[in-house]
């Protein structure tokens, strides 16, 4: 297996607050890793450091950043662009792909996430779950080898969660390398190769799902999971 992400002893400080404390994580190609843990434990910050949206204060990150795509917690779709424009914009202006080809590929991606009929709508005119799927298609359009998801379903009404999770499951089947921050425990258990538990800026355990959910080493994790389930 080839290691595609190698984060070594990452530290991140906001003012006086040490948000990440020596966080290390290795991810192999094709692996799906879910990060769980209480809110405020540094999960988003860790993803943002991997994506280089935050400068790290210590440690090393080894990734080819061109291969990295991110789906944000609040999506950040471009409100002034239609669904298809959201998806084709970066391939056209960053990769200099010709417009026709970019649109055609965008339509294929929309088909994949089941939204081809919404291609000319603006983000404000589609539902939360549809927005989430557009955000995934937009990231996929840059042909990333690794996708980072920050709580992809946390903003959704319960009945919309399923449609988004099934898209992510499809990606897992295609062996997309993914790091997913999530509170959907059943989903994490089903889709992940490993579960990482973060607490107070540290990874306190990394284990296969079965172990994490039935017999974690840390009592702290047991308490958290009992509350979640």
């Amino acid at each position: 297996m080839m290691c595609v992400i190698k984060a070594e002893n990452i530290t991140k400080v906001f003012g006086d607050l040490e948000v990440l404390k020596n966080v290390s994580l290795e991810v192999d190609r094709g692996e799906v890793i879910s990060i769980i843990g209480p809110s405020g434990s540094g999960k988003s910050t860790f993803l943002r450091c991997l994506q280089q949206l935050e400068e790290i204060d210590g440690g090393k990150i080894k990734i080819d950043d061109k291969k990295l795509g991110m789906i944000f917690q609040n999506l950040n779709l471009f409100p002034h662009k239609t669904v298809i424009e959201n998806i084709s914009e970066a391939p056209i202006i960053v990769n200099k792909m010709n417009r026709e080809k970019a649109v055609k590929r965008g339509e294929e991606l929309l088909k994949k996430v089941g939204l081809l009929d919404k291609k000319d709508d603006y983000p404000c005119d589609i539902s939360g779950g549809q927005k989430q799927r557009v955000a995934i298609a937009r990231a996929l359009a840059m042909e990333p080898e690794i996708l980072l998801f920050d709580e992809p379903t946390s903003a959704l009404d319960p009945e919309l969660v399923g449609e988004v999770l099934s898209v992510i499951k499809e990606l897992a089947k295609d062996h997309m390398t993914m790091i997913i921050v999530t509170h959907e425990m059943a989903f994490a258990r089903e889709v992940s190769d490993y579960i990482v538990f973060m607490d107070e800026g540290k990874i306190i355990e990394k284990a296969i799902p079965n172990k994490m959910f039935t017999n974690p080493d840390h009592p702290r994790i047991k308490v958290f999971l009992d509350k979640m389930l």
Partner: protein
Amino acid sequence: MSYILNITGFILKGSIVTLKLYAVAIVFSIPLGIVGALGKTSNKKWLKNILEIYIWIIRGTPLLLQLFFVYFGLPVFGIKLGRFQAAAITFIINYGAYFTEIFRAGIESVDKGQYEAAKALGMNYKQTMRRIILPQAIKRVLPPTSNEAITLMKDTALVAAISMGDILRAAKEVLTRDFNVTPFIIAAIIYLLLTSVVVLVFKQLEKKYAIYE
């Protein structure tokens, strides 16, 4: 009746000067405002400081004083400008400052997440500003920009003070000659028509940008 047509024709000739000045001022002050706003939202401290001083001076002093300074004052330093040049430069610099502030606020009102999404998709600063941030900022600054554009139309009347034959000056000439207020009423109507066109143009733009959110 023929008297009214006659003086209307005369005052309309003045409106050519007004419109020429207006066009030049708009065409240059808006880009100046965009560049200024990009400077003010950049992370270059020295550039921000220079712009800060520029805006402080321009906003804190009368436009008429600035016009007098450029037309009557600069010759003292050996810079002699024609009336139109002096007026155009003054209006561009003056309105550039106001537009800088308006556009800066517009750029800053765009959510930080938009920059991050653009960055995560591999866009550089220029691509992000051009394709993602500025188009969203434009929508938000249309109402205040429209206000400024209307005010500029009326402010052009200040050039009468350096003896330029604009609408106001033409009207005043007729009044001095014939001693009745009709020319002022005609001038008022012309200004109203011109500002109404500006309002209409911006209404159309706002409609165009209303398709999202």
